[in-house]
């Protein structure tokens, strides 16, 4: 024992610089990207269903544009495409919390939480990763729509804005899904979210149908639906003469919504730890 007590103090840990939020976000995003690159089928699987909707709905409802009062242009596939992109983003992001659940089931989550890893970066990395998945999948959907005959007057600028709206929508609902994962620690809750929240949000919007043709209350409710904000911003931007005030207004709302949810979800780490 004397040998131990007389020994000079333990060698000090090397004084590494305190890493920034951005570096941690990059490292953790790369970790998730490595996993998806190893199983690229995952991206394809998530895009199959939206493509089926796109082609089936596109064929099923071709005459919708002929209904008197339809204000969404004269090609239903062109009207539908931004709606399908956003549906894909919404449905995909509802499952974002799955990666947290997996990390909790293993000791990965607790290891990160007992290290100097930034909580904000743990949240941001999954949002960035999900948004990047949405980006790739949206490009596939747009490509298939183009092959199906859809033409977008908004051009490259319009497409970039659509992609931005889809990525913001993804980030916001991924944050919600992550928060649910941290609070409930249970995959079943994510199933609940995808069933109880995403389906109503999808139908209370103009994703599939011009809301000026639906019941008045639907159009009214849709105005407060973040999913609708993304659909409107994307569809406007793809059009020939976008209402830029509407595009930027809805993008702004979406950005604020995303920031608030990301902040709330990051706070959920505290609740997770309090009951650890």
């Amino acid at each position, binding site marked *: 024992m004397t040998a*131990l*007590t007389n*020994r000079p*103090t*333990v*060698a*000090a*840990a*090397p004084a*590494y*610089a*305190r*890493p920034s939020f951005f*570096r*941690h976000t990059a*490292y*953790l995003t790369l*970790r998730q990207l*490595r*996993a998806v690159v*190893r199983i690229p089928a995952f991206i394809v699987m998530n895009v199959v269903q939206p493509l089926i909707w796109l082609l089936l709905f596109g064929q099923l409802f071709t005459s919708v544009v002929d209904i008197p009062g339809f204000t969404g242009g004269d090609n239903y596939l062109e009207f539908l495409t931004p709606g399908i992109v956003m549906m894909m983003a919404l449905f995909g992001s509802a499952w974002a919390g799955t990666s947290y659940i997996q*990390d909790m*089931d*293993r*000791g*990965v989550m*607790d*290891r*990160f*939480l*007992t*290290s*100097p*890893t930034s909580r904000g970066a743990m949240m941001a990395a999954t949002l960035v990763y999900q948004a990047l998945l949405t980006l790739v999948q949206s490009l596939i959907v747009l490509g298939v729509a183009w092959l199906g005959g859809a033409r977008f007057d908004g051009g490259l600028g319009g497409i970039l804005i659509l992609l931005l709206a889809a990525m913001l929508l993804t980030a916001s609902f991924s944050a919600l899904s992550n928060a649910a994962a941290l609070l409930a620690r249970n995959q079943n809750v994510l199933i609940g979210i995808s069933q109880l929240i995403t389906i109503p949000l999808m139908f209370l919007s103009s994703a599939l149908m011009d809301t000026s043709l639906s019941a008045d209350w639907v159009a009214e409710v849709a105005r407060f639906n973040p999913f609708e904000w993304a659909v409107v911003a994307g569809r406007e931007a793809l059009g020939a003469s976008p209402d830029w005030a509407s595009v930027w207004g809805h993008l702004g709302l979406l950005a604020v919504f995303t920031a608030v949810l990301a902040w709330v979800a990051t706070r959920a780490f505290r609740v997770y*730890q*309090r*009951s*650890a």
Partner: protein
Amino acid sequence: MAASPDGMALVAADLVKTYSQGRGKPPLRALDGLTFQTEEGTVFGLLGPNGAGKSTTVKILSTLSRADSGIATVAGIDVAKHPGRARSAIGFVDQKQVSDPMDTGVENLVLAGQLHGMSTRAARSRAGELLERFALAGAARRQVKTYSGGMARKLDVAIGLMHRPQVLFLDEPTTGLDPEARAEMWAEIERMSREERMTVLLTTHYLEEADRLASRLAIVDAGRVVTEGTPEQLKSELRGDAVVIELHEASVIAQVLESLDRLGGFREVVAEGRAVRARVDGGGAALPLVLAALDAEGVSVASATVSRPSLDDVYLAHTGHSFAAVHAGSSADARTDLEEAAA
């Protein structure tokens, strides 16, 4: 980073932690005034059955959870007041696998280093060193999901060592390993504590593991430390070693009993057939004296053995129930479930 003034690498003082058990039930007291401290550079063992509060203690000391009351410090840092500083000083190896099965071994290590602020280059070189040392270099570029249980566990420990922590938490490092992998892990932990000169807090429910690895240990039962000391101290607190002397002939028994009585210090002396059993303090030293005395009297001894009390005896003496019984008991299972649910 400075150590605490009294040179203690880890201090747990009067920790209390309760978990809600749901409606209408009283909260469960997982820790009930748990107290211990650990000197720098030692392996300290927390020994106890599942549900005794070992993991809860590790979670509080590693900043994962917070105590309801009491003080916990790591390398002199109060974990409740400065969790960020404490996290830089510790390595954490959970009961569960802490590596990402989708990443390779080297990717897991480098990421852990990067998250601790190491440059990518420094992290790569440290990862290479650890993979070499844990005999994982051949599997470095394979995904962890292809590793055996023993390999994955060694990688977990390597991940905990990446940033050269001052204190390493090893929560049941060998649970679920086969005997061969367990022996290998023990050798690694022994080497590591020697070479890295760091403090290790080891929790285990294997008596053998605590006996072999820990230089000091605390026996935990129902959220409290029931006794603490070196394994030798704890065992010598018992009423001595068991001495068994076997004779060639039963006729000399009376002579032997007389000799023991003259030498003094023998208790619970029992004659069974041609054998005499007794308990004595410091059996190793007492035995040669007995043999010399019997030899002088011309008594021929067939065999003589001394057995040290086991930690199981210590556990039994301090908790009133045997270790194995607690493990099998249903009350322990209920507590285990709760601790797992909380985990």
